[in-house]
C-alpha cells in the first residue's frame, strides 16, 4: 500500500469517525440531566428499605448482589489462572529457603525502609475501616481489600529479604481468597433458606448509620474484602516466587 493510499484511507476514516462522533454527542442529554428511573428509585430506596447510607453499596451488594457475586468470581478465577500458569512453569519445585542467596540487593536506604514499615499499621487500619464502613460511606470490600493487600505487601517492600517465610503464609492467603469467595455465595444461600430468594437480605437491618446496620451488606463487604485481599496476595506471591527462581537461574 503506497503512502498516499494509506493517507487517503486514514483521512476517510477520520472524517467518518468524526461525523458519527459529533452526531452522537449532539444527541446526548444535557450535562447533569439524569433520566434513569431505576437509578432514582435506588437512590431513594437505599436508606428507608435497607437502613444503609451508602446507596452504591446497597445497589451492588443487595439489589444487584448477583452481579457482584459473578464479578467476585471473575477475580477469583483470574487469580487461580495466574497461579496455575506460574506453578506449571516451576513444575512442583519448591522455592528453597536460602537466606544469603535471596537477600535483596535493592532497598538500601534505611530511611525509606523505616517510612515503608511505619506505613504498614496505618494501611491495615485504613483498609479495615474502609471494609467495615462500606455500607455507611464510600468504599467497601473491594477498595478496602486492595488497601489491605497493599499493607501486607509493604512488609515485603520494607524488608531486606526476598523470602518472607512465616510473614507470607501461602496457605492463609489462599484460605482468605477461598473463604471470601465462598462466604459471599453462602450468605446468598442464607437468603434462600431464610427469606426465600438467593442473596435476599435476611438479617435485621439495624438502626440507620450504625456500624451494624444494612442487614447482610456489611458481611458481604467483609467477604469481598477477604477475597480481594487473598486473590491479590496469591498473585503477588507467585510473582515473587518467580523472581526467586529466576535468580537461581531456573527460569
Amino acid at each position, binding site marked *: 500500500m503506497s503512502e498516499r493510499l494509506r493517507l487517503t484511507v486514514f483521512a476517510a476514516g477520520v472524517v467518518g469517525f468524526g461525523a458519527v462522533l459529533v452526531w452522537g454527542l449532539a444527541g446526548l442529554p444535557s450535562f447533569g440531566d439524569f433520566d434513569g428511573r431505576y437509578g432514582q428509585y435506588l437512590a431513594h430506596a437505599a436508606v428507608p428499605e435497607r437502613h444503609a447510607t451508602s446507596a452504591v453499596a446497597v445497589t451492588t451488594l443487595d439489589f444487584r448482589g448477583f452481579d457482584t457475586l459473578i464479578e467476585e468470581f471473575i477475580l477469583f478465577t483470574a487469580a487461580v489462572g495466574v497461579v496455575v500458569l506460574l506453578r506449571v512453569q516451576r513444575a512442583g519445585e519448591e522455592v528453597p529457603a536460602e537466606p544469603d542467596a535471596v537477600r535483596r540487593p535493592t532497598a538500601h536506604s534505611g530511611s525509606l525502609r523505616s517510612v515503608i514499615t511505619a506505613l504498614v499499621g496505618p494501611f491495615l487500619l485504613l483498609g479495615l475501616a474502609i471494609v467495615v464502613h462500606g455500607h455507611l460511606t*464510600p468504599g*467497601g470490600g473491594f477498595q478496602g481489600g*486492595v488497601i489491605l493487600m497493599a499493607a501486607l505487601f509493604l512488609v515485603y517492600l520494607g524488608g531486606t529479604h526476598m523470602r518472607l517465610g512465616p510473614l507470607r503464609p501461602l496457605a492463609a492467603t489462599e484460605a482468605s481468597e477461598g473463604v471470601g469467595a465462598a462466604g459471599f455465595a453462602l450468605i446468598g444461600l442464607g437468603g434462600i433458606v431464610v427469606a426465600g430468594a438467593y442473596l435476599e437480605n435476611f438479617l435485621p437491618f439495624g438502626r440507620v448509620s450504625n456500624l451494624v446496620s444494612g442487614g447482610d451488606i456489611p458481611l458481604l463487604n467483609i467477604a469481598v474484602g477477604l477475597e480481594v485481599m487473598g486473590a*491479590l496476595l496469591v498473585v503477588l506471591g507467585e510473582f515473587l516466587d518467580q*523472581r526467586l527462581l529466576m535468580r537461581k537461574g531456573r527460569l
Partner: protein
Amino acid sequence: MTAVQIAALIAVAFGGTAVVLARDPARQALVASVYGLALAVLFLAFQAPDVALSQIVVGAVGLPAMIMFALRKIIRREEVDREER
C-alpha cells in the same frame, strides 16, 4: 459544570495524551499511574466517590504494579536469552 470539574477534565485529557506519548514501557507505567490519579480526581469531582476509590486502588496502584512486575520478568528473560546466544 464547576471549575473543579473543568480542571479535572483538562487534567485527564493531558494525562491520557502523556500516557500515549511515553515510549519506554516502565516510564509509561508510572505516567499511567499519575493518569489514574487524575481520573480519580475527575470521578470525585463528578460526585462518584466509590468509583474514585476503586480507580485509585486499581488504576493508580494495582495496574502499574502489575505492569512493572510483568516488565521485570520479560526484561530478565531477554537478558538470559542474550547470554545463552
